[in-house]
């Protein structure tokens, strides 16, 4: 992604042919700065810190079609991700969706777009790119992560159903909890056991708690811990099928 040309002009030292401390060059620098100063700074200020609703909306229009001017659909989403330089499966997309309060995975309404990007103060792609690290870091706060995790249930759910299809749930867990040791096992379990075709909200929320409180060897699993039956059965299945798991105490 080409860096903005303004940056080099503003005086960031180039590597290698660094200017030796000498009045002239410094003066040149200063001269540089001074001559460009007022208009440049003004220009920069206006660019970096202002947020224009108009700009934001016209940016939105880059991704909508004539037939559906108010909703950003799957095609537009693809383009959006490409522009942003982010894999659509990347977890940061979920954070963005969360900020927007998007209701349906794969779609942004104009309202949602505006809401989210206003909060982030981004009215073009570059600004949003600059925010990506910030957005990723939000996930490190356990409270925010929990909120995003819970949000993603409704986001990913088929609105005709109350519950989340097992497949979708599995994929979502892959995005949200990629480093949870038991994730693959749980996904295998619910895929295998045909009786679990959907994951309901209570089960979904408890999976997060489970990943946070129960260790990979199930030593801290408490049978009286009011876990949903599905997770109890998962533990049983795991203990029966995985020889590396110590048996129940």
């Amino acid at each position, binding site marked *: 992604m080409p860096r903005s040309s303004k940056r080099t002009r503003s005086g960031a030292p180039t590597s290698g042919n660094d200017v030796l401390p000498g009045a002239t060059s410094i003066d040149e620098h200063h001269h540089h700065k001074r001559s460009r100063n007022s208009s440049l700074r003004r220009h920069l200020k206006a660019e970096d810190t202002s947020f224009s609703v108009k700009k934001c909306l016209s940016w939105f229009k880059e991704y909508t079609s004539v037939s559906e001017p108010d909703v950003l659909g799957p095609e537009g989403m693809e383009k959006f991700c490409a522009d942003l330089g982010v894999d659509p499966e990347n977890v940061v997309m979920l954070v963005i969706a969360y900020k927007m309060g998007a209701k349906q995975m794969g779609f942004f309404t104009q309202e949602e777009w505006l809401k989210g990007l206003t909060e982030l103060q981004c009215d073009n792609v570059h600004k949003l790119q600059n925010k990506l690290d910030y957005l990723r870091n939000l996930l490190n706060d356990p409270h925010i992560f929990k909120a995003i995790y819970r949000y993603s249930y409704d986001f990913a759910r088929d609105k005709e159903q*109350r519950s989340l299809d097992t497949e979708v749930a599995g994929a979502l867990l892959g995005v949200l909890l990629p480093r949870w040791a038991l994730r693959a096992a749980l996904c295998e379990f619910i895929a295998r056991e045909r009786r679990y075709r959907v994951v*309901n*909200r*209570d*089960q979904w*929320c*408890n999976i997060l*708690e489970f990943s946070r409180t129960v260790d990979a060897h199930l030593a801290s699993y408490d049978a*009286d*811990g*009011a876990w*949903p*039956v599905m997770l*109890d059965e998962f533990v049983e299945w795991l203990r029966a099928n995985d020889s590396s798991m110590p048996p129940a105490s």
Partner: protein
Amino acid sequence: MIRKFKVWNFSEPYYQMYPDTWMTMDEKYVERIWSLLKNAIQEIQKKNNSGLSFEELYRNAYTMVLHKHGERLYTGLKEVVTQHLETKVREDVLHSLHNGFLQTLNNAWTDHQTSMVMIRDILMYMDRVFVQQNEVDNVYNLGLIIFRDQVVRYGCIRDHLRQTLLELVARERRGEVVDRLAIRNACQMLMVLGINSRAVYEEDFEKPFLHQSSEFYRMESQKFLAENSAAVYINRVEARISEEAERARHYLDESTEPRVVSVLEHELIERHMKTIVEMENSGVVHMLTHTRTSELGCVYKLLSRVGEGLRTVADAVSAHLREQGRALVTDTLHNTNAIAYVQNLLDLKDRFDHFLQNSFNNDKIFKHMITSDFEYFLNLNNKSPEFLSLFIDGKLKKGEKGMSEQEIEAVLDKTMVLFRFLQEKDVFERYYKQHLAKRLLLNKSVSDDSEKNMISKLKTECGCQFTSKLEGMFKDMTVSNTIMDEFKEHVLSSGLNLYGVDLSVRVLTTGFWPTQSATPKCNIPAAPRNAFEVFRSFYLAKHSGRQLSLQPQLGSADLHATFGAAPASPPAPAAPRRHIIQVSTFQMCVLLLFNQRDRLTYEELLNETDIPEKDLVRALQSLAMGKPTQRILIKHPKTKEIEPSHQFYVNDAFTSKLHRVKIQTVAAKGESEPERRETRNKVDEDRKHEIEAAIVRIMKARKKMAHTLLVAEVTEQLRVRFLPSPVVIKKRIEGLIEREYLARTPDDRKVYNYVA
């Protein structure tokens, strides 16, 4: 020796007589006084006190003490007494070791006591003043101590005393006669020598005595156990305990009684509890099997003496009872007959109640044990609820020969006891409803009072939720009768046509009566159908908004039948015969078809009647394949199976002695397996609802509750009907969370909130 002394008035006149110059006494004078006293004491010890003057001696002693020479007196006394006991008394005793030892010792003791009393009297002032001030032993006790240490506890005397006493006891135990008085005296002496404690008696006699007793009885018990049955052993033990108690009371010190009895209990009973109880061919199990009620009583009495005795007996009885019960309940050979099954259980209960009352003194331990054992094995067989209901059904049905109402009541009370042991009371309720419905609808109850009685018993046990529907069933019957009366009047007054059918309808409220999964279809023949329509209009006119649906599986019909209009072949009788046959509704449908056609195949019958196959088969089996006196139809071919092409036709050769013939439906005594499974499914469904209702009820009241507590509460509330498993309860909680009746609290996922 006659005492010459009189009670002395202890004023001290002497002091007044002797002025202060006498305050100090010189040594010589003191010694002189002391010699006097010493002599006197020695005379007393030699039993020569008759010539002594009490007054003078007392005065001398008093003087010495007054002038601060109490110490001298005291020391002197000690010396004199010691000397006498050492040189004279002890020697005498030692000489008598093998010749009248106990007698000699006892005499010495008596003499000592007597002389010490006199000496004490003389020296009483010293006792009161010097002894008190200097906190030394008083005169009498001093004497006891010296006697104890110098005589009784002197080396070989001590040992010999102990050995002698123990030997005497041992001999008496072997059956010999011994000198009890001598032992008694010795024991009393030891007690006194303890001076306000029983330590001397205990150390010198009792401890070794108990030790010896312990050894003796240990040996005896082993020998006796090996040679005798439990009952005999027990009697022997009782006898020995009495004997030892009596011995202690009579000639040992009576404080020994509980101690020695405790030794016996330990050696004879406690050590061998299990052996006694479990003895082959004579232990508790043998006694139970052979109904040795009084022997068991003896066991109970004996073993209740020791801490864990009754537990041991109860464990043995329990093991036996459980085995019996388990065998009864799992006996697959005989467990098709519900009546026998329950009767056997009642008999078993009676048997053990008999033991409880007559052998075990109604002891709570045994009562609880019987209850828990019955609870255990009754619930091993999951058909117990059904069988129990069938048993009661049998008792409440007509035809129960020769039982008076009181007898029936008594049996039902006993049955209720078994009911209490059931874990799955809701299953019982379901079956009871079914059976009651049949009794009411088929008019089979022996008496309304007995029925109502039974219901009130159930109400007492389970509350009105259990019985409200049953009572509803009764109400329906009464109301139906009223409706029928009104209907008959209505028909008469309006001159309605009932198509020649004498109709009788019972209206059942759906909620009360056992539900069918679906009302079976049935093509009712024209006449009864039309008659019913008349009733339907009448009823719905009175109760608009209600719906009536006919239940053909529960109905019956009386048909006028004429046989032999065209006799088949001899030896069939010639003249046509008329009978009234009582059949089920299904059978009616089948039979009426033969008014139009002579022969019908099974397939045709199936199509025309529209009756479900299994019901049609049952109906045909009773009509065509039962006893000859019941065979209204003939089946061709005469196989057991019914194929679609098989034919049926009226049996014109039918005869019966009775004018009114009742066709018995081939009824299953109890359910078939598929039916049982269906019932179980229904029960499980109901349970789900009951669990959810309980959860909601509890949460509504408490608003907030932790998971484990909620599970416990729910289990507690439902246990009168059945025992829900924690997993099932958890699943219901999850269901309620999903339907948003409950939610987990945000702070703690293990605690639930009620969502209003």
